[in-house]
């Protein structure tokens, strides 16, 4: 088993008066892609937001590379090398695609500072980014926004990516590109925690997997194991057998 980058121990989160996470335990090994699966409302998004410091755990502990980040502020967490793609994408619709990316490239003062090979790489994955470079991001199509959101997370190298349902709204061809991209990132030692509903996508990428239900992690193990065991899938995910290719 490889080194652990991110670890959640008994994390509870409240939103206002509601108790959402009831003790989440999660381990994300370094350099691997971990899938976080679960039904609607299981608490996946809440888990990611809690890691990111957008909501604070009321109990429990979150450690990143050995450091306790439970009480840290979001910007601190981000600057220690974490990128986040929220479920709602969080596009700055007033700004152009270029400006969105410029902001995401934290170390760049102007565009010239961004590594051009990395930009080209992104353009290759998502040609629309190049085409709409100077367009207001708010005018992009649903899938293009999703691409922009992912592009922002990978415009500079980060040690950990938290990605919430990146495949929704994407055409199959682009999904294939994204799978390829995540593989490359992994090869470059980037750790990824991915929330996904598209099991097919998950199966192609995941190294390990955690399944959530009702604010807890109810299963964790290797992806290969889950992919092989259809009855486990149907038990955990309600996947009707063979419903999806």
């Amino acid at each position, binding site marked *: 088993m490889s080194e652990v980058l991110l670890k959640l121990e008994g994390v509870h989160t409240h939103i206002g008066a509601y108790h959402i996470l009831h003790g989440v335990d999660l381990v994300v090994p370094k350099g691997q892609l971990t899938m976080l699966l679960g039904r609607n409302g299981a608490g996946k998004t809440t888990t990611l937001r809690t890691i990111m410091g*957008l909501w604070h755990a009321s109990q429990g502990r979150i450690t990143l590379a050995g450091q306790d980040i439970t009480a840290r502020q979001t*910007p601190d967490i*981000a600057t220690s090398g974490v990128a986040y793609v*929220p479920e709602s994408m969080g596009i700055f619709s007033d*700004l152009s695609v270029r400006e969105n990316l410029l902001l995401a490239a934290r170390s760049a*003062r102007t565009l010239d500072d961004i590594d051009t090979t990395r930009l080209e790489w992104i353009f290759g994955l998502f040609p629309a980014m190049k085409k709409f470079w100077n367009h207001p991001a*708010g005018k992009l199509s649903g899938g293009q926004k999703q691409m922009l959101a992912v592009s922002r997370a990978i415009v500079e190298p980060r040690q950990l990516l938290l990605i919430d349902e990146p495949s929704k709204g994407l055409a199959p061809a682009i999904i294939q590109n994204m799978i390829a991209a995540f593989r490359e990132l992994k090869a470059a030692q980037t750790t990824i925690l991915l929330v996904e509903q598209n099991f097919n996508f998950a199966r192609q990428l995941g190294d390990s997997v955690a399944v959530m239900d009702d604010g807890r992690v109810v299963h964790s193990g290797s992806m290969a194991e889950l992919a092989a065991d259809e009855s486990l899938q149907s038990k955990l995910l309600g996947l009707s057998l063979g419903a999806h290719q």
Partner: protein
Amino acid sequence: MALVPLLALAALPAVGSPSTWLTLTVAGLAMGMIVFIIASGLTLVFGLMDVLNFGHGVFIALGAFVATTVLASMGSYTAADSLWLNLLALLPAMLVAMAVAGALGLVFERFIIRPVYGMHLKQILITMGGMIIGEEMIKVIWGPEQIPLPLPEAMRGAVLLGDAAVEKYRLVAVLVGTAVFAAMVWTLNRTKVGLLIRAGVQDREMVESLGYRIKRLFVGVFVAGSALAGLGGVMWGLYQQSVIPQMGAQVNVLIFIVIIIGGLGSTLGALIGALLVGLMANYTGFLVPKVALFSNIALMVAILLWRPQGVYPVTSR
């Protein structure tokens, strides 16, 4: 951008005499510069940060009152008929005014603005409350009376361009205004500050998730806006040659109009808006004084009908 010369040219035949026209135009442009200086802080605070700060005027008044105190303590420098000595008094007055206004901005941001980012209605109320408190505190400290703020000796009077007279002080205002404009354009275009603020207004969480301390940034910009307002107060007070505690409230509507004409968030837009307002006031004041009362409002409504977002919108709110 062509609007300003267009308006000026359109007025020429109406005014008739070229020298009168020149006086009016130069005075109007210079007035526009003064208005721009007092409005410049608001482009940051309202235009970029989307904070409907009805208390902005209080920083203007504060700047002016601080200037009265500073200048009063340097009476010999302002009374001297030497531009250099005058400037030696004026510069510290401006700096102190900006510092004090900026410091108050820090407190204001923390206690008044921070809880209400993104909530316009509450911003209006809470900043109005802040405005009232500020104005009353000015009365407690400086008293309710009008306080004279005489112009330094060398800036009085006018220079003659043929038959047209241009007040010297207005030329000073043009210089200061240009400097403010240049500094703002440089900062907003050469750094990511402007982008970050706009992004932060739309989605604070996302900006923080990208690793920026939006809180600190907002404080910084708010303080800068307040300091600019303080500078504007000094310029406005010197222009009026006296200050009253209500002066902030008096210019409030005017500067909001300027920012809206310009299109939210654009420095250039604010400058154009201010110049238009300055020119318009002078032309209508000369041609049909009755209408001058409504000239700003009419200008704003006309511009919004033509361009619902203002002249140079940077943000699409």
